């Protein structure tokens, strides 16, 4: 297996066009083909919140080694309209190439002299084969595969699998692919990059963060999912609605986020694992019920896929602006878990852990991701749910007791065994009001204090459990000359940056805070005790993880790379910043 890009051992494609032109589909076809060819891939999309008319693009990066994010430039631009040439020609590395439709008005050669150009009769091919305009994309993919010397048969297989059952579409796409491929073979020299299919390879899947979270829920035995559509969390709903039978899950689209979370609480009260997902705006509407879950000690899992605010902001872009909101959301005080996956594997495994934590500690658990992670593709090893398993905690499935069952028994651990309503001999009273052990409303000051203390007592074992779950993860050099600190989806660009820095001879390290609440203060403090320069990387304006670190450890991270224009941080930006702080 060989993969040679222009700049390094990765190769990047940017497919650009109008919304509605099937850009993402093409990106994922290409990704899947390269993955099946034995490469690791990463793919990220960029699109406005419009169904038609806006500019869309998809960056696909592939390599023999694992790829964690987009790079700083691309090797090959597949421009399906003039706008894409205009907007992205400068993203090409010198020596890169651009595939475009002969029929366009813009000539890339007039914009940049240092790139190769591959004018192709994309529209012509489509007309010839009598296909819809959207298969221009596939013809262009054919050209691309030829340029990098990649066997088109793998792509044919991907097309067949993707459009399974729709023979006409398969045929048309394969035709277009082949025409493009042949045209390029006849007319163009290769790009100079080379990607070969390897025979033996690991089993691999290509998956988005959203799919990984959905799979994590299925893996955890989640039986109830209610969610109101909200970008960028909606794909979880789509995935689960399409797989409800296999998953044995009831999947509901209710009338609002308020209905969603309250249904989830109802289902969880009744004894099933239940989840909802939304973005910040929808989560606002859930905050009241988050408190209800806390007060009634009903275990629920809530996924928040962040996007830029305030308010509706930009629905289809990315952000890490909701961290402190999430930690403090809802009136009053109660223990909760906030966990932020950094890649698709963590999306899967941390979602499974989330259900165990929710049930064992009878608290709400929030999974905090963002658009960049939720909608980007990555290849990885197939998920193994048995690595986490299912632990439902103190859930009683029968009641033998002579005494009356007490939902909120004052225990030393703070955890009071739950029952499943419907079992013989016991009924369970859950209460939004402060209550006594039986669940009856009370305003007695001693009982009120005792119940608050009981709930907070859970923190002791919870903290211990979270320690065990490796809440802070460190990547890179042991003896680092510089440290990057971040959370969530900046993990990808940070890992890429480590590689780049290593290439420059800089030993750096990335500290990823995975569990943000309860905050793993000791571990973070320990890791930050060195005196190498440190760079905080976040996709928000105010450096919210920085605030948490300051609050819990006293450490001020002065150097900050904060991006808040809705776009993910690039590895090169991080490297620059690191170079800056090392000076």
């Amino acid at each position, binding site marked *: 297996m060989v993969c040679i890009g222009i700049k390094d051992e990765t190769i990047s494609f940017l497919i650009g066009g109008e919304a509605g032109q099937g850009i993402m589909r093409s990106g994922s076809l290409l990704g899947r083909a390269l993955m*099946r060819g034995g490469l690791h891939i990463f793919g990220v999309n960029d699109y406005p919140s419009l169904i038609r008319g806006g500019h869309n693009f998809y960056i696909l990066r592939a390599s023999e080694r694992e790829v964690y994010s987009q790079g700083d430039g691309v090797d090959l631009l597949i421009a399906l309209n003039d706008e894409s040439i205009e907007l992205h020609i400068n993203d090409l590395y010198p020596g890169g190439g651009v595939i475009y439709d002969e029929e366009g008005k813009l000539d890339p050669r007039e914009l940049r002299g240092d790139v190769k150009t591959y004018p192709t009769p994309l529209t012509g091919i489509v007309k010839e084969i009598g296909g819809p305009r959207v298969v221009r994309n596939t013809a262009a993919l054919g050209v691309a595969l030829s340029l990098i010397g990649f066997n088109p048969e793998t792509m044919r297989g991907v097309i067949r699998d993707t459009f399974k059952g729709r023979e006409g579409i398969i045929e048309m796409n394969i035709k277009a692919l082949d025409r493009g491929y042949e045209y390029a073979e006849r007319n163009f020299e290769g790009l100079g990059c080379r990607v070969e299919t390897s025979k033996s390879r690991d089993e*691999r*899947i*290509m*998956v988005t963060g959203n*799919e990984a979270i959905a*799979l994590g829920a*299925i*893996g955890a*035995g989640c*039986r*109830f999912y209610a969610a109101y559509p909200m970008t960028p969390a909606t794909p979880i709903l789509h995935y689960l609605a399409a*797989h*409800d*039978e*296999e*998953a*044995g899950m*009831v999947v*509901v689209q*209710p*009338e609002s986020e*308020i*209905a*969603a979370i*309250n*249904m*989830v*609480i*109802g*289902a*969880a*009260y*009744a*004894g*099933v694992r*239940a989840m909802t997902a939304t973005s910040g705006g929808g989560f606002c509407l859930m905050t*009241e019920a988050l408190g*209800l879950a806390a007060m009634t000690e009903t275990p629920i899992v809530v996924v928040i896929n962040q996007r830029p605010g305030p308010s509706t902001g930009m629905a289809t872009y990315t952000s890490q602006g909701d961290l402190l909101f999430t930690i403090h959301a809802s009136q009053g005080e109660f223990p909760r878990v906030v966990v932020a996956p950094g890649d698709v594997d963590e999306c899967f495994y941390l979602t499974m852990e989330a259900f165990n934590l929710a049930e064992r500690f009878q608290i709400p658990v929030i999974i905090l991701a963002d658009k960049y992670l939720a909608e980007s593709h990555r290849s990885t090893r*197939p*998920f193994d*749910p*048995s690595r986490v398993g*299912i632990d439902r905690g103190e859930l009683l499935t029968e009641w033998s007791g002579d005494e009356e069952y007490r939902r909120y028994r004052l225990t030393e651990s703070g955890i009071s065994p739950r029952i*499943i*309503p*419907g*079992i*013989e*001999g*016991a*009924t*369970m*009273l*859950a*209460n*939004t009001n402060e209550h006594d052990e039986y*669940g*009856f*409303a009370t305003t007695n000051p001693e009982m009120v204090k005792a119940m608050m203390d009981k709930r907070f007592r859970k923190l002791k074992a919870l903290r211990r459990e979270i320690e065990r779950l490796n809440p802070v993860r460190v990547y890179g050099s042991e003896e680092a000359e510089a440290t990057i600190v971040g959370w969530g989806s900046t993990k990808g660009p940070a890992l890429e940056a480590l590689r780049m820095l290593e290439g420059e001879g800089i030993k750096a390290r990335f500290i990823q805070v995975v569990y943000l609440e309860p905050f793993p203060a000791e571990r973070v403090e320990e890791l930050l005790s060195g005196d190498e320069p440190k760079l905080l990387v976040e996709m928000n304006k105010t450096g919210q993880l920085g605030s948490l670190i300051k609050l819990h450890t006293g450490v001020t991270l002065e150097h900050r790379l904060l991006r808040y224009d809705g776009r993910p941080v690039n590895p090169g930006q991080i490297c620059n910043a690191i170079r800056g702080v090392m000076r």
Partner: protein
Amino acid sequence: MTTMEELSTPARITWCPGCGNYAILTAVKRAIVELGLRREEVVAVTGIGCHGRMTNYIRVNGIHVLHGRVLPVATGIKLANQRLTVLGFAGDGDAYSIGMGHLSHTARRNVDVKYIVHDNLVYALTTGQTSPTSEPGFRTRSTPRGAYEQPINPLLQALASGASFVARGFAGDVRHLTMLLKEAIRHRGFALIDVLQPCIVWNRVNTYEWYRERVYKLEEEGHDPHSLEEAYRRAVEWGERIPIGILYREERPLYHEHFPPLRRGSLAFQPLKTPDLTPLLEELS
């Protein structure tokens, strides 16, 4: 068999003496007893308001939830365990003001939960403000010159939303109310019972006497509860004569019947084992 005794709790009842809520509590217990339901198979969901204390006073499974959110919680419970009898108790503010949107949607879905609204035409627990069912001119602490909005007609709302069982009860007639509750529980599908519930503190207009002079029983006047048109006609009656009884009932598919996983039985009692994800993962390879 469950007895009235068994359904009682040690919690001290704090409703005002004479409050209409007592009658509703009694009727609910009686309906459970007379239907022979096991108390463990019943779940009561209550909203916030004076009515909300129902969960403290009746020894079935209970969850006292947020203001206005009885129906979504009840829906979640029913979907998790369709074998449970799910009773929702709400106030008029709860149900028809902040919780209004849920009524239309739960009704059109025909979720098999019973929605009992303690309709006292006022916000009682918050010490007397106007409610969506307050009559025009009704003076409250938030409308000192009198309520000026046209009231919500809960029955009309439920009918327009496709509720499959719509009834009105009166807390001054426990026996009749018990009958309605039993019918509603027997009914397969969503049921709204709007209960005229005198609040003796904050509503000095719509009193027991006021209602007694006005209510009449639909079943005594040959009303056909299977006619939607008839139901609409009765629903708008208010003033000199106020109908109580079942306005409308129809059978149609239940919400939980649409979900394939529920055919295997209640989710809540399906064993939870780590599943084999291979088929799903293969789709992604």
